[in-house]
């Protein structure tokens, strides 16, 4: 199967054509040799995006989303590689569960799925997991995600043991003893009577992880940074040479906590939406390179788990289908960063941190790409999402960067080019 993409701008290249032969990018061939010629309508071709932090919900929570539905959603967002967190049921803390996830991912064949294994057995923060066996089964990192490792001694062992297998450790930083609330602690939480989560809850654990990483000289990756203090500490640590990397999510540079005012749980997630001061700091961190990656933290939840009392509603929002457009509209369009830097944040950097080897667009590289319409505004419509769930806060937002086509390993995984 030979394919040519025409009428496109190609990221980083002075050409308007892309040649694919089988699963790989190819050197140019004649139009007459092509099985299919796709008119990209002037869209921009970029390497397929890599999401280093998401939730596919399978096994155990198929009523929220399955590997098949959520990777289809990822493909619609321009993703060709996604890394699901281990908080499934059973927990992805052993090779058998990892193998099952990979089998389902292969059947769905919408995305490359690189599972993240639990750092501790049962993500209960007590005993380190069988990281080596899980690596043999296919994990690319370890994390307890929403159940941060509260005991510093256990965190040390996780960092040390994982480094034997060259597995990055991704930590969701939150001191739960400070964070019994349901939204950011501040004047809005006080005004609407919702218990608050202080930024200090996040900052304290970021500080601890930086200290451990520096002391042990072992890398650590901080998940979804949302605070000014977190950005400052990571910036200072990087300047000292500490092997710390971090990600943020689109919601932390596009929204503030006052959106919770009407108790709409589509604005509820961990860490919570912060104030403008913190949003500004996140944008600054993206701009100066302190923040390495943009992840989605894509977290499908059933409407029964969201359409209820705010404090009872589960944490998390969908991310795959809105992430690139939010990054493009709020960072590139506004002149904060270039498109090159956005692709770094959403493809090269996460690939590098997790050693996935993604993002190449040279002859012989896997043909993973996405085509986005950067020139026309579109209205984000939750009813057009491919995720099994509906919990997006972005319904009705006007954005740039709609996906026109996604190709993974030479196969079309999403197309909107009528």
């Amino acid at each position, binding site marked *: 199967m030979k394919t040519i993409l025409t009428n496109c701008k190609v990221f980083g290249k002075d050409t308007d054509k892309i040649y694919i032969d089988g699963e790989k990018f190819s050197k140019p061939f004649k139009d007459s040799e092509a099985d299919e010629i796709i008119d990209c309508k002037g869209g921009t071709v970029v390497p397929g995006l890599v999401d280093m932090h998401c939730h596919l919900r399978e096994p155990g929570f198929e009523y929220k989303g399955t590997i098949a539905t959520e990777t289809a959603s990822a493909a619609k967002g321009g993703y060709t590689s996604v890394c699901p967190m281990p908080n499934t049921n059973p927990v992805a803390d052993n090779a058998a569960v990892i193998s099952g996830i990979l089998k389902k991912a292969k059947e769905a064949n919408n995305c490359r799925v690189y599972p993240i294994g639990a750092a501790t057995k049962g993500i209960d923060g007590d005993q380190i997991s069988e990281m080596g066996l899980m690596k043999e089964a296919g994990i690319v990192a370890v994390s307890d995600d929403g159940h941060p490792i509260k005991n510093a001694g256990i965190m040390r062992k996780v960092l040390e043991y994982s480094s034997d297998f060259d597995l990055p450790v991704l930590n969701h930083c939150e001191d739960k003893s400070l964070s019994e609330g349901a939204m950011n602690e501040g*004047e809005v939480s*006080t005004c609407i009577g919702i218990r608050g989560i202080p930024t200090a809850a996040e900052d304290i654990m970021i500080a601890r992880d930086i200290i451990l990483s520096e002391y042990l000289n072992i890398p650590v990756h901080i998940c979804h940074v949302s605070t000014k203090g977190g950005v400052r500490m990571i910036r200072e640590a990087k300047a000292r040479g500490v092997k710390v990397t971090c990600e943020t999510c689109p919601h932390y540079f596009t929204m503030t906590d006052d959106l919770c005012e009407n108790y709409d749980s589509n604005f509820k997630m961990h860490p919570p939406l912060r104030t403008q001061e913190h949003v500004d700091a996140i944008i600054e961190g993206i701009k100066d390179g302190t923040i390495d990656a943009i992840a989605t933290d894509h977290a499908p939840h059933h409407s*029964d788990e969201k359409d*209820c*009392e*705010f404090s009872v509603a589960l944490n998390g929002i969908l991310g795959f289908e809105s992430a690139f457009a939010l990054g493009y509209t709020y960072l590139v369009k506004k002149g904060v960063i270039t498109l090159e830097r956005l692709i770094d944040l959403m493809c090269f950097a996460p690939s590098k941190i997790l050693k996935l080897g993604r993002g190449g667009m040279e002859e012989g590289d896997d043909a993973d790409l996405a085509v986005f319409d950067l020139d026309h505004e579109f209205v984000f419509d939750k009813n057009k999402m491919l995720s099994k769930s509906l919990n997006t806060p972005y319904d009705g937002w006007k954005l740039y960067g709609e996906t026109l086509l996604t190709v993974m390993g030479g196969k079309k995984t999403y197309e909107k080019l009528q």
Partner: protein
Amino acid sequence: MGLKSKDLLGMKQLTAEEIMEILDTAKTMKLVISSANKKTSHLQGKSVVTLFYENSTRTRLSFELASKYMGSASANISTSGSSVNKGESLLDTARTIDMMGTDIIIMRHNQSGAPHFIAPHLKASVVNAGDGMNEHPTQALLDMLTMYERFDTFEGKNIAICGDIYHSRVVRSNAIGLSKLGAKVSVYGPKTMMPVGIEKMGVRIADSVADCVRDADAVMGLRVQLERQQKSLFPSVSEYAHFYAITPEMLALAKPDAFLMHPGPCNHGVELPTAVYDCDQSVINEQVTNGVAVRMAVLYLLMARRNNL
């Protein structure tokens, strides 16, 4: 005449004019309560259901009496005697009540925003009788009625509120309502019970009980929830009483004609010494009567809006 909204969710949603209309109507309703024949036809043919997910004595009873004095059919659901314990969702329960032809659902819930969540899904008017730490609008209205009977205007009046500010929906509703009418609210409590950013709601954070109460026109104590001691918000009842109670000495710092309020139920000897609770300046018992009057006014004005349509 009548309220603008279908529901009474909080003081946040009321304008200054609506608050004054409720207070003026409540003054009239109070005449009904003190008359020999406590019966009006304001709610004749209407049905009122109280749905309480939290314990309550005075709020629930005063809503019930208010609706009965005005001739409505009323019924009650408590968490122990309904399908709530079978795990039915709040929305399903509320819809079930709605579909029985209910005109007004009065709800108390331990989650902030619970009435805001159900109200748009229902035909019935929803009255918030206390939601989590958010608001308790009819308590603020009865407090304001008690003040209004003594003040010619709220403008420039100093109102002192002392106690557990963090967890108090009474404080939030009073701060919002009183600010809308031009009163100046000061609050004070242990730092462990002070919420971040409360000053953004238009209140002054005092340095001490004395600073809070000094030159006040009205002083309000708040109930200390003793179970909070286990959560290390204060070390002991005796230490709390020693440093944070409104004692006769403290009350003497307020204006000479100032009066003392408390939303009840009161822990005697904790937030208020019994001598203060019973002192001449105390209007705590009158607040209870005003609670019925203000709730009559709210129910009537909500239905008056309906009849205007």
